[in-house]
């Protein structure tokens, strides 16, 4: 097994699926000649040519909508939003069209496409360019929403997403592109509807995903030094949401902290808390805490921005609160 970055894992997944199925193609802003603004598709334009690696105008509504129409008509687009912030401009095309067409026409059409979108805060990009808005897409039925936290999951889930006959929003957190992890040479897929325990522990359950996973794992390391054994559950899939492993873990630890990078208010964590108390009510020992982005548009100034984001210390403090 090689240790590669998540950027590489995503790039490999795309290349493998394009080699496997000629109906798969990439479209988006700067995915071709430029090589992708996060360098995920570097080299693809030369390798696959302009037919299968399509540079688009700055037109997110039609990037999303044309990918949807093409998918309806039998090909398999992987459409990239340069960042998920720009998916806001295409919100209607994603949530009201891609997500609903299969249902609204009684199953007459299917929409086998993947929307790739890097997102996240912490890079001093200012309030409009720093969103982790995963929850607003996951709120609607009809769209699969996933966000991996490791290179292994990123590769396996992207390949599964490309092969899925449903529209999938595949959210990549930009601070994770550099993260390395074990990825096998041989082919594998990771299902789009299963959470997973990423670290075992008996004392407290942390429910999280993506950037939250990275931060939580660091916190868990620290806590372990103090003898606190944290179990970390990686949701990975936000819609449909698989609460099974989180509930099972909670029934073991009786305590939980939910960690996400997006805004806390009406965030992913709220749903997790609500379901834990619905499905494991008799096991609740202490209030379930949420660690999330503070309710403020992210400022540009570095330290000020950092003060609004999640970090290992905030997770450690929350864990100690629930203990």
């Amino acid at each position: 097994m090689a240790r590669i970055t998540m950027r590489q894992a995503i790039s490999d997944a795309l290349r493998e699926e394009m080699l496997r199925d000629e109906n798969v193609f990439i479209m988006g802003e700067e995915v071709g000649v430029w090589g992708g603004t996060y360098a995920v598709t570097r080299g693809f334009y030369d390798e696959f040519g302009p037919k299968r690696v399509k540079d688009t105008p700055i037109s997110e509504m039609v990037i999303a909508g044309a990918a949807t129409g093409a998918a309806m008509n039998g090909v398999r687009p992987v459409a990239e939003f340069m960042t998920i912030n720009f998916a806001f401009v295409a919100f209607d095309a994603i949530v009201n069209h891609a997500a609903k067409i299969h249902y609204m026409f009684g199953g007459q059409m299917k929409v086998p496409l993947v929307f790739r979108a890097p997102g996240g805060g912490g890079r001093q990009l200012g309030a409009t360019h720093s969103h982790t808005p995963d929850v607003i897409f996951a709120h609607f039925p009809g769209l699969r929403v996933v966000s991996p936290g490791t290179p292994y999951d990123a590769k396996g889930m992207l390949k599964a997403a490309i092969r899925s006959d449903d529209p999938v929003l595949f959210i990549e957190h930009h601070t994770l592109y550099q993260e390395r992890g074990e990825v096998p040479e041989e082919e594998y897929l990771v299902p789009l509807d299963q959470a997973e325990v990423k670290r075992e522990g008996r004392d407290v359950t942390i429910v999280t995903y993506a950037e939250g996973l990275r931060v939580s794992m660091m916190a868990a390391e620290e806590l372990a030094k103090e003898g606190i054994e944290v179990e970390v559950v990686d949701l990975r899939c936000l819609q449909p949401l698989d609460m099974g492993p989180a509930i099972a873990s909670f029934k073991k630890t009786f305590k939980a902290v939910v960690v996400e990078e997006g805004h806390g208010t009406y965030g992913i964590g709220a749903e997790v808390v609500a379901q834990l108390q619905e499905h494991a009510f008799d096991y609740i020992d202490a209030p379930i805490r949420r660690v999330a982005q503070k309710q403020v548009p992210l400022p540009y100034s570095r330290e000020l921005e950092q003060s609004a984001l999640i970090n290992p210390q905030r997770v450690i403090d929350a864990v100690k609160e629930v203990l």
Partner: protein
Amino acid sequence: MAKQVAQGRAKSIPKDLLLDWYRQMVLIRQFEQSCSEQYQLGKIGGFLHLYIGQEAVAVGSIAARGENDHVITAYRDHAHALAVGTDPAPLMAELMGKATGISKGRGGSMHLADVSRKYWGGYAVVGGHMPLAAGLALAEQYRETDGAVLCYMGDGSTNIGYFHESLNLAGVWDLPVVWIVENNQYGMGTAVDRASAAPMLDKARGYGMEGVQVDGMSVCDVYLAAQDALKKVRAGEGPQFLECITYRFEGHSMGDPLRYRTKDEVAKWRDDDPIGILERRLIEVEGSTKEELDEIDDQVEAEMAAAVQFADESPFPDFDTLFDHIFVEN
């Protein structure tokens, strides 16, 4: 101002074609009339947009399509379904929300589709179907077929961002689409020049398209213009733009207070009833008899009666089907 019924190339269109178009237009007209009745009876709910007055546009242009060509439109979508040949029964059943409806009662009036006939619907969000049209065309281009897409839209919808991005992408990528504006003079209560800063053909040039304007009340003119446009698309001349000048005789949807136009204006346009124009052509030029045409009307009436009965007698969807088709893989 009664129109010239057969000029130029239109003369050469054979009678049997004209008779079939007549039948289709009468079918659309009668279908819309029974929709209106069923709506009054409370058997159709939601928003209901009738196509009465615009029949020549859907019928004439869809008559020009080849077997690999696709059709997609907005919420005023019954006519296009009938013009591609869909049986009115499952359409009426859809409008009544029945399990036998073409979309299993999920879509309703604004979301008819018949994928088996390459008719992709039926979209209620203004402009939302335009990028889908670009995508349908992209798939054909990707597979290197000769398939093209007929994308219909209203005059008012040319002012939304979707229109701009879709036509521009089609231009840049040479997508095989014929963009057909059904300019019926109003978007709801807003007259076209209160909403558009420039004429439709000027908009087309902004996407590198020449654009052609045609009398949307003449099924023959629409047919020929659509045929030319599709030829150009297949000749590799890129996407085409066709503006059909037409008028909706009824309100925007049921319950339109109609404050924005005068009775006289409506009356003037009704003189150009597209069915009347074709009827005159058939009788004055093609030697059809009134009886011949009445017989067609009667056949259509019988067909519609059967369709309404089928819809009426069909069951509503089972409650346990509520969650079907959210995902392909459940």
